[in-house]
């Protein structure tokens, strides 16, 4: 049987990949996907703990996270479309009108 810690380590790795993707990618869509990756890493972590505790709470939490992630995706894509309309670009580095 695979020890629980492996799942947790996988979750941490996935989360870190999400953070790194968020930091280094220029395309808004990819940045956006990185957030989804982080949320899924969290889900994995929740499921692991739920399994360990024999408690269903963590699994319920996962469903809520997935639901919220869907809503977040809808809002995020809408904002990305608004950005594209206003600036005709999806490059994060070019969205910097406001500074200081």
């Amino acid at each position, binding site marked *: 049987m695979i*020890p*629980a*810690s492996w799942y*947790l*380590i996988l979750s941490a790795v996935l989360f870190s990949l999400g*953070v790194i993707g*968020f*930091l*280094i990618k*220029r395309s808004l869509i990819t*940045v956006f996907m990185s957030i989804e990756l982080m949320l899924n890493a969290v889900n994995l972590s929740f499921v692991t703990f739920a399994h*360990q*505790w*024999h*408690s269903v709470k963590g699994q319920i939490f996962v469903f809520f996270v997935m639901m919220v992630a869907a809503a977040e995706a809808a809002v995020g894509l809408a904002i990305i479309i608004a950005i594209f309309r206003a600036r005709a670009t999806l490059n*994060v*580095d070019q*969205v*910097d*009108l*406001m*500074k*200081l």
Partner: protein
Amino acid sequence: MTQHLHLWLIPILPFVGFLLNGMLGRRLPKAVVSTIALAFPLASFAVVARAALIFIQVKPQILPWLINYSDWINAGPLHIQFTLALDQLTILMLSIITGVGFLIHLYSVGYMGHEEGYWRYFSYLNLFLFFMTVLVLAGNFLLMFVGWEGVGLASYLLIGFYLDRDSAANAGKKAFVVNRIGDFGFLVGIFLVLANFHSLDFFAINNIIHSNSGISTATFTAIGLCLIVGACGKSAQIPLYVWLPDAMEGPTPVSALIHAATMVTAGVYMIARTHSIFDRAPIALATIAIIGAATAFFAATVGLVQTDIKRVLAYSTISQLGYMFLACGVMAYSAGVFHLMTHAFFKALLFLGAGSVIHGMSNEQDMRKMGGLRKCLPVTCWTMFAAVLAISGIPPFAGFFSKDAILAEAFQAGSLGKILYFVGLATAGLTSFYMFRLWYLTFLGESRSEDHDHHPHESPWSMLLPLVILAILSVCGGWIGYGRFSHLLSPVIGSDIVSPTEASSGSLELILSIVAVAVAALGWFVAHLLYFKPNDRAQKLATSARGIYSLLLHKYWIDELYHAIFVAPLKFISQYILGWIGEGVLIRGSAWVLAGIASLTGELLRRWQSGNLRSYSGWLVAGAAALLLFAAIYANHLGIWIHFDPSKVLPISINPNAAGH
């Protein structure tokens, strides 16, 4: 009946007037401005009158009547409530403030009719009434202080009302600065009260004092002396009187209301209100008595030779306030308040009369250029004559009763009191002299005016009506008699320590009265000799005693002395020492440092707050990492991770019972 009495209306009504005129007055026609300005004080007076009727006639036994409107400040041990208190003393003060106040508002409609900023004047005047009624109604020291500062503000604004005059601005500044010194003393006194009684409520403090709380005489003396400093500032006593003569730069009705009838008596009111503290501080009492007598005499001597009609009245006010202090100092608080009341009548009348003269003479204030106004200004002339008789202490005018009461009380108050009695008696003679001098110079003889184009004219009815009413009050105001007056006030300011003067004999009082009247008559006689008919006796007298004359004319050089002792060194210090170190180094330096910091952070921010989202996220992650590092180091520092064993963390050892599931 009493529950329908809304005390809060008394201050709030003038405040509404202030708001209306202050915010909209610029755009309103004059008639509306004056209607607002008159209606609200009149309404306030109506509430006061109703309260007076209810309490004096119907149910005097439920005074003092306290209303806690709400908690005001609750900070730790400090609990201060928003309390208005009504008792006999308050009713009397409120009647004077709103009653005389309304008359002076009415007078102002005529007097200020042609002035620029008519609305501004009335909004300030209503503001003054608001603060003054708050001061008097306050149930605790802090609320009183709010009113105290507020009337100072209103006074400052009104002294400096003529915006185009430098002298007015300077006078306002002087009043403000000198009053700050007094306020400092008052504040320290309040802090001492709070530290010793753990309360600022007047009635709670009285209860504590009466229950023999074991507070030492030294404490009472310290509190008393601090409060005296405050009272001296507000009531223009030695050594803080210097602002009042200059305050005459304000419009004359303001001098009548604020700088004669009401605000300047706030110090006397405060001493009477807190008398249970002073009753237990003999040294403080003696200080008040000496300051009062000295001020009374000193200011009267200066008043002998002044030629500006308003200045004479200003010094006379200081002198009369000295009488009130003297009365308080010999624990005859009700005599002080009695004189406060009669003084409010006749001094307001004198100022308003002087205003009428000035108005009629087209802004001439020098008595040497007046004379013969009896024919042109008959109403002003004879109403002022009543006031002159009253202030000189000629029976049966109001001032006679109150002044007589003060002198009698002083005479019966120990050996110090006897000495001060003679000072007061001499002052009475001087007072009578300079007041008749003023009246003779102004109204009798022939006109000495150089301006023959303008004929002095009598004032409109709105100015004469207040004069007549105040004249009636100046005549009858004292007829209640000191005995009944002091009985009326005794629940509030009857000294609660039995004084040795209780068993005074009627014959002694009669003798004292006769002596006082004789001295006043002497003063009148001398004035008559010198000024009734044009002659050079006064001139000769001045030349023969040139030294004294010049000393008095220049007010003992006190302003110059203060300037040399306080102002000049302060100026030197601020200009050369603080100017270089303070402004050059500290202020410019700190401004420079702030500007430097601002531009430096600007530069830093330009890099940090780059506007680039990826760099923001990078900082977020870096920040989280830094926090993690801090937390880890801190936790390690606590010795928690000394036995750090990764295997115990992952996999987590699960104990299903640990969390109760």
